[in-house]
């Protein structure tokens, strides 16, 4: 027992900088948990300083651990491998202090719903386990820190932010099982690769090892990000498919309906069905590109708009039910993936055909920022299209004789002939509620 005590004392007295570093890194993260206190504040902008401070400490800790790891210990002499202690200290502190922060967070009115706390506890336990197990397996403290770091770096922000905004939903909800596996395993795999790189390449100059490690960390993060956020053309076929096939277009009296026929297996074609209930007619058309239903432009025909994956054009087509013929109307240049943007698209996507069929308006997710959209005006007679609003999100579209009205927060009207945008103010008469 004496021996163990002495060894423990020796290791903790060596590992105290790690305790300090990890505790401070954890403490640095606590302000992230504070709820929004100010209106009009971009939450994520405010998070960056904190995130950077925490990151600075954790990254520095890992880099120092990598340097320190170069000292070799005769592991056989010690019953507790000396280099496991720093990893243990690091992981435990991070876990402990953050959980303490969560407990203290009740004072700051953080939502203590178990549904939200569970993911964060899960995350930190996993971070600790990864760190400790890897360190134990490889016998190097830095192995644990390095392996755990991509996990830490990516999910730190995600999980902490979820805690701070109680009405946000768990990020997993929108991803398929495969995507979730990829998202979580990406950082893990890259962390492991980084560790192997460090361990196997002892002869390489330190700068190459560090650079390589940084690269792996970046790749680890990237592998997770690729699943989600950026509006880069939609990587998930499933989301687009289900969004498209759930479309239904019906005339106001219910007599004519166009919809997509549901298929079990998503395949790169879709089957449209046009039903005239009054006239008891039906037509089906298989299309090889995803189409959105624009509207009826006559008793017997419907306009569609579609874009193939990877294509830099959008095509307007007309489907005539009597002949069951799909004929092209015109096409216009638009960025690739404008129509394919995953599930987010349904929040901003709007399609409207003027009742006389002369003009159409489309609103798709914009490249710029989340929840923003671009509005396109299509002149179907002259076969022209132009983007009239950029980066604004209209909740509705409406038509007047010479203008398209967009229900943006400060509503706008777009001239149908010139495409010029001007305000469409809603002026209220002040009346007592």
């Amino acid at each position, binding site marked *: 027992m004496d021996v163990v005590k002495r060894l423990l004392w020796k290791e903790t007295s060596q590992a105290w*900088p790690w305790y*300090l*570093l990890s505790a*401070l890194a954890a*403490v640095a993260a606590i*302000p992230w948990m*504070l709820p929004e*206190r*100010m209106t009009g504040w*971009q939450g*994520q*902008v405010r998070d*960056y*300083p904190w*995130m*950077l*401070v925490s990151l*600075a*400490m954790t*990254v*520095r800790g890992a880099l120092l651990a990598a340097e320190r790891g170069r000292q070799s210990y005769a592991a056989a002499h010690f019953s507790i491998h000396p280099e496991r202690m720093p990893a243990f200290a690091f992981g435990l502190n991070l876990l402990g202090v953050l959980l303490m922060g969560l407990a203290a967070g009740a004072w700051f009115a953080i939502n203590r719903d178990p549904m939200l706390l569970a993911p964060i506890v899960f995350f930190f336990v996993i971070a600790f386990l990864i760190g400790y197990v890897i360190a134990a397996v490889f016998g190097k403290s830095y192995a644990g820190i390095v392996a755990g770091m991509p996990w830490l770096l990516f999910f730190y*922000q*995600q999980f902490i932010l979820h805690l701070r905004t109680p009405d946000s939903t768990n990020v997993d909800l929108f991803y398929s099982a495969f995507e979730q596996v990829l998202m979580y395993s990406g950082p893990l795999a890259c962390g492991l690769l980084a560790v192997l790189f460090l361990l196997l390449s002892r002869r390489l100059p330190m700068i190459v090892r*560090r*650079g390589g490690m*940084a*690269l792996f960390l*970046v790749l680890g993060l990237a592998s997770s*990000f690729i699943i989600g*956020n*950026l509006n*880069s053309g939609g990587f998930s076929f499933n989301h687009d498919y289900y969004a498209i096939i759930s479309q239904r277009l*019906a005339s106001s*009296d*219910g*007599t004519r309906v166009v919809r997509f026929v549901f298929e079990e297996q998503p395949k790169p074609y879709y089957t449209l069905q046009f*039903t005239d*209930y*009054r006239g*008891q007619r039906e037509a089906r058309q298989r299309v090889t590109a995803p189409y959105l239903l624009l509207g009826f432009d006559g008793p017997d025909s419907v306009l569609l708009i579609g874009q193939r994956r990877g294509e830099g054009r959008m095509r307007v087509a007309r489907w005539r039910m009597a002949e069951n013929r799909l004929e092209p109307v015109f096409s216009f240049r638009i*960025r690739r993936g404008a129509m394919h943007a995953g599930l987010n698209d349904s929040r901003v996507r709007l399609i409207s055909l003027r*009742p006389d069929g002369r003009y159409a308006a489309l609103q798709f997710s914009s*490249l*710029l*920022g989340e929840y*923003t959209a671009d509005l396109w005006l299509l002149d179907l007679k002259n076969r022209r299209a132009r983007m009239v*609003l*950029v980066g604004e999100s209209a909740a*509705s579209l409406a*038509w007047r004789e010479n203008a398209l*009205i967009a*229900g*943006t927060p*400060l*509503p706008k009207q777009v001239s149908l002939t010139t495409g010029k945008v001007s305000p*469409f103010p*809603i002026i*209220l*008469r002040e009346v007592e*509620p």
Partner: protein
Amino acid sequence: MRRLLWKEWQERRLWIALWVATGAALTALGKGQGVCNIAWMDSNWGMLIPLAALLAGLGGFGSELHRGRAAFLYSRAVTWKQILGAKLLLGLAAIIVSVIASAAAGRLLLPAEYHQLITPHSLLSGALVMAGFTAGAYLLGLAFSTVLPGVAGGLLVAVGWMAFISLLPLSGIKEPVFSIILTLLAPLAAGLLIARFGVTLHAMARLRRFALVALAGLAAGVLLDFTPYAAELYKKLNAPGNTPAEERFYNVNFSPDARYASAERLFGNTTIPCLVRLSDGWFSFTDEDFSGESYWLANNLLLTNKRGFTSEGKSARPELLLRQWHGDELQTYKIDHSGNLSNEYTALSPDSRYLLLWGYDELKLIDLATGQARTLAQADRIKLRILSRRNPGKQYGFRQCWWQSNDEIGYLDPYTGERVLAPLSALDSLD
């Protein structure tokens, strides 16, 4: 100085290259977002660029302080100001190059339709924000390149930051700052650096230096952030791409001919639903909760589908609300239903007198003149369920209804799916 700069570059060129490459790569991956449009900062991707800058800074003093070269370098005829200056200059050069690389990548890669957004003003704002973030991160990295003082410095930054975000709401200042990192964190980190590296100073002298630099930087930053110019700039940064801070309406929903609109009006810190008759600006508040989806029908009827629960989570009866203006009055008709009716399944009669609504097990008719609703037909849910189980893949229930003419409706039989036509007058005898 040139030689010092060369030494710094040689020692950290990989990290600097990684930093610049990260900025350019992310801009490319973001299809041209970057300096050209700072909305990318909303994205998680944006975090990687300051991180790369931070890593570049972390190696900053490593070669001197960790490998014992400090004595060699400091014993040359060079001041610590020059040594630090070289490191900062390198960072500045990297910032400039990364901003330019990002702007160039953006200009090349942004789709043509977005080029209208690239104005000198937007480029300047984007460059300032990006430079601010990366400068702060680089300085942080430099300040933290030695462990214990770095950790102490980090704690200081932590405390300062917490104080700031706690006290700011109390100060009554409402305008948000546009570049926190540049104006707050950078001065702190800079002060730390300058205090640390006056090698022969006593502790008090170091503290004085830190206080001087940090406070001067903070003061400059606060002044910059809260001037009217900064507020203007912030507004411009937020449009287009992000919602401006002073919008008056949310969820503006125009009727098809834009004669009416439903919206939520910003009233202090809350929003109040209203219905507006655009011709004369007359609007009406509704007392009821607008927690439902509103849908304009062709004849300027607003149909709101109230869910079976309120926004507080309490259960409520599912209702459909029909609203239309009659002269100066807003008529609201409430329609109870079993829970399966929605805006999606409606059919307006050709003469706009009646509205058909149907759901899985229910078919309703509404007289639009009087608001009276009656159930035309109802199907047995249990029977429908049994049929569904017996014949998977086949659909049951009221799937489609339509107006065959002004007096005749058609529907698909809920049990057999066969087409049924029924005159309106005969429908009392249905069921």
